[in-house]
Each structure stands twice: as C-alpha cells, then as structure tokens.
C-alpha cells in the first residue's frame, strides 16, 4: 500500500466562506478518507438570542449568514407565528416570497459562478456574478440594502413594496430569464463541464436519507423534498411552480437543479407581483402584542436547503431557547460519501457541489532550483512583485 498523505484545506482560506479545516487523506491522487474540524468561529448566536427581545432576534439571525440573510428570519418568523397563532396579511405573504426567491436567485448565481471558477472556467464566474448584480440592485430598491434586508417581523414585514416598484422588478425578471437561459445553455451544453462534473461526487438516494441531507443536494439525488411545497407558508401555496429534481446525484445534477430552480423562482416572483397589484398598499402586518409561552418549530427552504428554527418561549419578551439548524450542518457531513474515491482535483468540486463553504489549495507553491537548492521565488519576492505591479498601474493611470 502506498503511503497516505494529508492535504489540509483551511481552516482560514480566502476562498472559504467559513473557517473549517478539511483533511484529505490521499494515496497518490486518490482521496481515501476525509476528516473535518469545525468550531473555529463559534459565535454562540443561540445563547445570544436568549438575551435579545424577539424583535432584536430578527436582526441577530439575519447575520448568521451573509448570503442567505433572509432565510433565517423567514424560518424564525414561521416559528414565532406558530407560537402566537397569527395569520399574516396576503400582501406580507407575497412580499416575503419575493424577497425569499430573489435571494435564491442571487445565491444560486453566486454558486454557479464559484463552481465555474473552481473548474478553471472563469467565463462562467464572470457571467454569473454579472447577472447577480441586478438582483442586488433590486434588493437595494426594496430594502435599502444589498444584503441583510431587515424585512421580517412577527406578523408581517417591515417595509412595503409599493406598486410603482413592480414594473422594475418585472423588467429585471425578464432580463434575468433571458440571461439565465443563456447561462444555463452555456453550462449544460459545454463538453468540458460535462467531462469535469458528470459522474463526479455521486451521492445516492440512500446516502441522502442516511445523512438527512436537504435542499439541492437532496433533490439532485432524486429525493423530492422542498419545504416550500411540503409545508406551504407565505405565498408558496398561492402560486404555480414546481420542485426541480434530478436522479443522478453527481455534481452536474446539482448544477442542473440549481440552474433550473432559478427559472421557478422567476416564475414565483412574477406571480407574486401579479398578486401584489391586486392588493391595497400598506396592509403589511398583523400587530402582535404579546407572545405567550409555548414552543414553535419553523422551517424554510433556503437556497442550500431547509433552515430549521426551534423557539421556546415562557411568556417573557425574549426566547428561553432558540435552536437553529442551518442546511450546511447536515449537508457538510455528506462530504465523506462524495469525496472518498475521487481524485484530488475532483474533490474540490465535489466539496463545492454539496455546499459553497469552499476550498482550494491552502498553501503557496514554492519552486526550488535543483542546481543551487535555493528558492526560485520566496514569499517576500512574491509580495515585492505584487507591489511593483500596483505601482506600475498607479503610475500609468
């Protein structure tokens, strides 16, 4: 048996969204085992939430993740509304769904871009992130922020989307439909992407059930689950859309599911705009005065899968216990199935396909000159070269 080498990825890496350490145990090019370490940046948000009022907790949970910053408030609102037993106005339902779906589009575009980048396909990266910008502009128009939108509260939403803003949303959706079509065609028909992603990082249906994985990870292995359809809330039961699944379980299937889901999101947003037009402006919340003692379990289909919030209240103004389960918590564990047996170069895209907590090589390459034994390019020399380049650009602007 050849010797096993450990390739560490992380814990801190410019391309990883979270600090995590992956250790790939490799024999030659093949990954034989994978171990991971987490907890480098545990923020204690569940404990912190116990010291906040319910209204403040919305802002706290929004900051769990920068990319799905509306999914956590969405699930938290669902949990709280279960405790206070309140029905929210239709207008608030439509607005919630619009914000949720816009987030899905920008998150999926971000993933497609990153996946392209890690395959060495930077054109996809540039395109995807370019078309993500109009979505963030819409967010700025709706909420004033490109991220962390602060739209949710118990009983409704904080801000209305006035009807005069709807044409802009429709126009952007039309544009995105065209561009997503272009992007989907480019990705799905490309022979290089086929070669890099088909049959790579396969998760079977049994793997998904064993690890209780959720979201596009599960749907790309033929497990037909989606909280938006299974447990309808907000406007999801009021509009026409379908859940995208694919049975293959490889990286290509995950890309396909995400790309096609964007079209469904566009469809939902357009129908929500129709719904908003028929309703009176301003009717966006049911006022909730007291939160009784009880327990609430709320979930929402975030771009990466089901976000789950459990809240226990005791009649005071803050949660007595607030448990949060993000989709990556269950999806990351499937790395063990997806990566083992792959080559190192496929392991990176397999990790990216499951979850965008992404990785690349951690270390810088240092070349030695055989004859002299000296470093050809040291760290300082690299920095000097970079500074030289910056100075050159500065001089020539």
């Amino acid at each position, binding site marked *: 048996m050849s010797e096993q080498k450990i390739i560490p990825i992380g814990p801190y890496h410019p391309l990883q969204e979270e600090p995590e350490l992956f250790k790939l145990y490799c024999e030659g090019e093949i990954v034989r085992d994978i171990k991971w*370490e*987490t*907890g480098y940046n*545990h923020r*204690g948000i*569940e*404990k912190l939430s116990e010291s906040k009022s319910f209204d403040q907790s919305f802002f706290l949970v929004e900051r769990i993740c920068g990319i799905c910053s509306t999914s956590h408030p969405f699930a938290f609102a669902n949990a709280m509304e*279960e405790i206070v*037993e309140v029905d929210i106005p239709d207008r608030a339902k439509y607005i919630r769904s619009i914000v949720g779906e816009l987030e899905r589009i920008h998150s999926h575009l971000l993933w497609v871009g990153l996946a392209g980048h890690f395959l060495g396909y930077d054109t996809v990266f540039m395109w995807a992130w370019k078309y993500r910008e109009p979505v963030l502009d819409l967010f700025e128009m709706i909420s004033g922020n490109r991220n962390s939108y602060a739209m949710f509260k118990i009983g409704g939403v904080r801000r209305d989307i006035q009807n005069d803003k709807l044409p802009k949303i429709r126009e952007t959706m039309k544009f995105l439909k065209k561009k997503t079509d272009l992007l989907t065609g480019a990705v799905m028909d490309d022979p290089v992407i086929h070669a890099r992603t088909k049959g790579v990082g396969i998760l079977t249906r049994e793997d998904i*059930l*064993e*690890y*209780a994985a959720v979201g596009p990870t599960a749907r790309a292995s033929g497990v037909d*689950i989606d*909280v938006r359809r*299974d*447990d*309808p809330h907000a406007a999801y039961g009021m509009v026409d859309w379908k859940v995208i699944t694919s049975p293959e379980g490889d990286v290509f299937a995950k890309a396909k599911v995400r790309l096609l889901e964007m079209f469904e999101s566009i469809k939902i947003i357009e129908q929500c705009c129709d719904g908003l037009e028929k309703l009176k402006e301003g009717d966006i919340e049911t006022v909730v005065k007291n939160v009784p003692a*009880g*327990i609430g*379990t709320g*979930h929402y289909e975030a771009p990466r899968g*089901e976000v*789950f919030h*459990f809240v*226990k209240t005791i009649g005071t103004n803050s949660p*007595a*216990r607030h*448990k949060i*389960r993000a989709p990556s*918590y*269950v999806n990351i*564990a499937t790395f063990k199935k997806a990566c083992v047996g792959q080559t190192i170069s496929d392991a990176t895209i397999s990790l990216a396909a499951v979850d965008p907590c992404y990785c690349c090589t951690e270390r810088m390459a240092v070349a030695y000159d055989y004859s002299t034994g000296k470093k050809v390019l040291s760290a300082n020399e690299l920095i000097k070269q970079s500074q030289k380049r910056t100075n050159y650009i500065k001089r020539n602007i």
Partner: protein
Amino acid sequence: MRREEFIEKIKSEFADHILGTEYLRANRVTVNVDPDFILDIAKFLHQKIRLRFIIASAYHTKAGFEILYHFSDDSNGNIYNIHVLLPHEKPEIQSLAQFLVAADWIEREMHELFGVTFLNHPNPEKLISEGNWAEGVYPYRKDFN
C-alpha cells in the same frame, strides 16, 4: 400520514412508554416519551415510518434537561417532536448516532454545550470546542454566566 394516524401508530407500538401527546398548531405534534426507550422509538420513526430526522434541540429548565428530537414527514410537512426529560443529576441518554449518522454532530454539540451524556456514541470527539474551552463548563446551561 395524518398526525392522528401518527399518534395511533406510535401508541400501538410503544403504548407503555408514551407519557403524553400534545397537538400544536396546524401540523405539529409533540410526543412525550420515556427516555430509556428513545433508541427503539427513533429507530421505529426513522426506519419503519421513514421520517426524516431534522435535528434535536436541548434546553435547560428547572425540571432538568429536556431534549426535543424533531422529525419531519416530508409527504405533508408535518413535524413531530419527540420530547424526553433527563434529570439534573444524571443527564444520560442512548445515542441515536448508533444507527443514524445524521444525529452524530448534534449529539456531540449537545454534550459540549449542555453536558448531556450520549451513551454508546460511535464518535464521541469534540465538535466545536476542541482546545478552546474549559472542561466541565457548559455555556448553554441556564446557570452559566
């Protein structure tokens, strides 16, 4: 499966170990069970009725340590909470990770944050506090300051 059917099924299988049931709003149910039989009950839910394990939530009250195991029926969006109460003096319970990989992380996390011991856990290493937290100090307990 409607939630009434679920209650019927679990009662017919574990009649003596069900301590109470509670219907919450719409499609949520809490079933209070005897902690000594959690392994059999969870096996029944996961392997026989094919429910999806979402996560487990622990919390600390005057009565002791309470754990809710959340299971989801994805055919209709029902969530079933299986509730157990563990005494202050001896917070111990059988580990579900023995047969359910999905419970591995959360049980290790609960052990670190609440000090609940999961018996026969296949991989009882630290998950989040390795090398950066004192032994025997459990930050999510109510008496922690």
